[in-house]
């Protein structure tokens, strides 16, 4: 077990390093630069460049950046003057995280329930309904879902607040919009694996012993069927994160996604770099946690590794 975790950890650290390096050099390759003010004289420009360290050779910049990164310092934003990247992330991440966790909880819990109901009623009306939800969910992009929900529940019927972020009821619509796709994919996978488990011998054994249907489903079927759902938790976190990018701008939530999209169009190097690294490291970390949990939950995974 310890060896498995160690192996995963080394792989994750290596991936992070590759990510940081690739991102660092890619950002420097981008056309345009952050100091595009027509009033800027050559002198000011040179000053600015030396202030941000752009006058040094690339490799020195890279070394400095890595050194600062180890201290947890992502540098200053170039557009939002006097703000550090760390500061902006610290300010906006809680909003995104809050939204993301709500979306994830909503999607996974409802997805699992739908999948279980669907598999229990295979071929029936409920199953048909659940499959339709699943197919629709994977066919509607989240920004469209966001627009539809906002229009229907917010504007037309006035049931829920339209935008911004001031309390729990403000998070319902955006969380649903982000989570719907994940809900659909979780329910599909859960249904498939429930059906697969249902034909296993131990289910037959349990049934022939006279165990009640409820107990079979709850104790034997779900426990085994939930494994494949865990494997997609890594990509799921990534897709929820992607969802926050657009949903935050539709619902005017001051989260990280909004800042990221803005910095991309502003050519704000240090912001893009810092936030990309933050996102990347965060996702890699999530994947690591999922991998380790999966290894804990299912010993076959550990042994399967060479």
């Amino acid at each position, binding site marked *: 077990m310890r060896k498995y975790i160690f192996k995963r950890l080394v*792989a*994750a650290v*290596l*991936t992070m390093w*590759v*990510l940081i390096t*690739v*991102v660092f050099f*890619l*950002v420097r*390759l*981008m*056309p345009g630069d952050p100091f595009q003010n027509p009033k800027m004289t050559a002198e000011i420009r040179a000053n600015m460049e030396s202030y941000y360290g752009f006058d040094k050779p690339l490799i020195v910049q890279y070394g400095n950046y890595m050194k600062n990164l180890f201290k947890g310092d992502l540098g200053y934003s170039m557009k939002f003057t006097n703000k550090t990247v760390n500061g902006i992330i610290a300010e906006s991440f809680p909003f995104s995280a809050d939204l993301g966790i709500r979306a994830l909880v909503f999607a996974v819990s409802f997805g699992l329930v739908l999948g279980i109901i669907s598999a229990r009623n295979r071929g029936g009306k409920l199953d048909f309904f659940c499959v339709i939800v699943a*197919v*629709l969910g*994977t*066919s*509607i*992009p989240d*920004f*469209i879902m966001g*627009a*539809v929900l*906002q*229009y229907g529940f917010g*504007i037309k019927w006035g049931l829920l607040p339209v935008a911004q972020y001031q309390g729990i009821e403000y998070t319902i619509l955006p969380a649903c919009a982000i989570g719907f796709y994940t809900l659909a994919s979780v329910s*599909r*996978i859960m*249904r*498939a694996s429930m*059906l*697969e488990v249902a034909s296993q011998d131990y289910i037959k054994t349990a049934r022939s012993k006279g165990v009640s249907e409820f107990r079979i489903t709850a104790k034997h079927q779900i426990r085994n069927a939930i494994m494949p759902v865990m494997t997609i938790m890594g990509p799921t976190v*990534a897709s929820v*994160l*992607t969802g926050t*990018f*657009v949903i935050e*701008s*539709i619902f005017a939530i001051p989260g990280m996604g909004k800042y990221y*999209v803005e910095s*991309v*169009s502003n050519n704000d190097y240090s912001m*893009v770099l810092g936030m*990309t690294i933050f*996102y*990347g490291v965060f*996702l*890699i970390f999530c*994947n690591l946690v999922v991998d380790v949990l999966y290894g804990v939950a299912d010993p076959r995974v550990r042994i399967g590794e060479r």
Partner: protein
Amino acid sequence: MAELNRESFVIRGKDTVRMESISRPSLSFWQDAWRRLKKNRAAFIGLCVVIFYTIMAVFAPMFSQYSLSDMDVTSRNAFISAEHWLGCDATGRDLWVRIWMGARVSLSIGFIAAIINACVGAVIGGLCGFYGGKLDMIVMRLVDLLYGIPSLIITILVVMVLGKGITPLIVAMCVVGWIGTCRFVRGEVYRIKEQDFVMAAKVLGIPDFKIIIKHIIPNILGMLVTNLCMAIPGAIFQEAFLSYIGLGITPPNCSWGVICKEGITYLRYYPHQVFIPAFFVCTTMLALNLLGNGLRDAVDPRLRGTE
């Protein structure tokens, strides 16, 4: 008592000639798959929708009196009417034309990106799976590494480096997009390589090249086509997403993502400007998803109904 032997008995009603004859023409793998696909109503409708949209994307803008950027000031934000079949946007551009021009961009990006990814992934994955060894190890390490990095981040950065437009978008999607297919094809090839018919071919001295063409490719082609079909909606979605956040297609060109983005600004007052393009995006994705599911069932009936 007379000796009973075989010759003295005749089985009535047994026609050995007819028994041995083949009653139906034999079907090739693809004919069989096509037969099953036609029976699957949802998948068949999906196929029709995709073909219909493609034809409309090619021809509809040609037969309209409006063009992509003609602005009709008098009918700004117009609703559906005889003059403007799907209404107009905030600057008075005809949505019917814009939708189909957008379809050209969105569909071609979806198809091209998915096909390139499938081809690159299949070749690399196939080589790794078939030959194994050092090549396999190096590529798989690389794939594991790339797999760990969130693909969206790489795509965004590559688009930023290459600039906006159709080609940069496709390139950016392909940088990491082939990995999924590569992993899947490698696994399949690895599995098929170990089977007896490949062993038999090897023993008979058939060269590797011919084994790949004759035995391995036909065995994975069905699943590969299914995978491809499932990847297209993903690519269309990615394009819409990138255009939506301002990184993909930029005006004056348009795609479904761009139209949605432009429409969302006026959601409160003119919801049709979002919902009409949204309808086309969703139905396309739905059609392709249904077609993909149907194809999967058609090429491998064992999987039917499991998902």
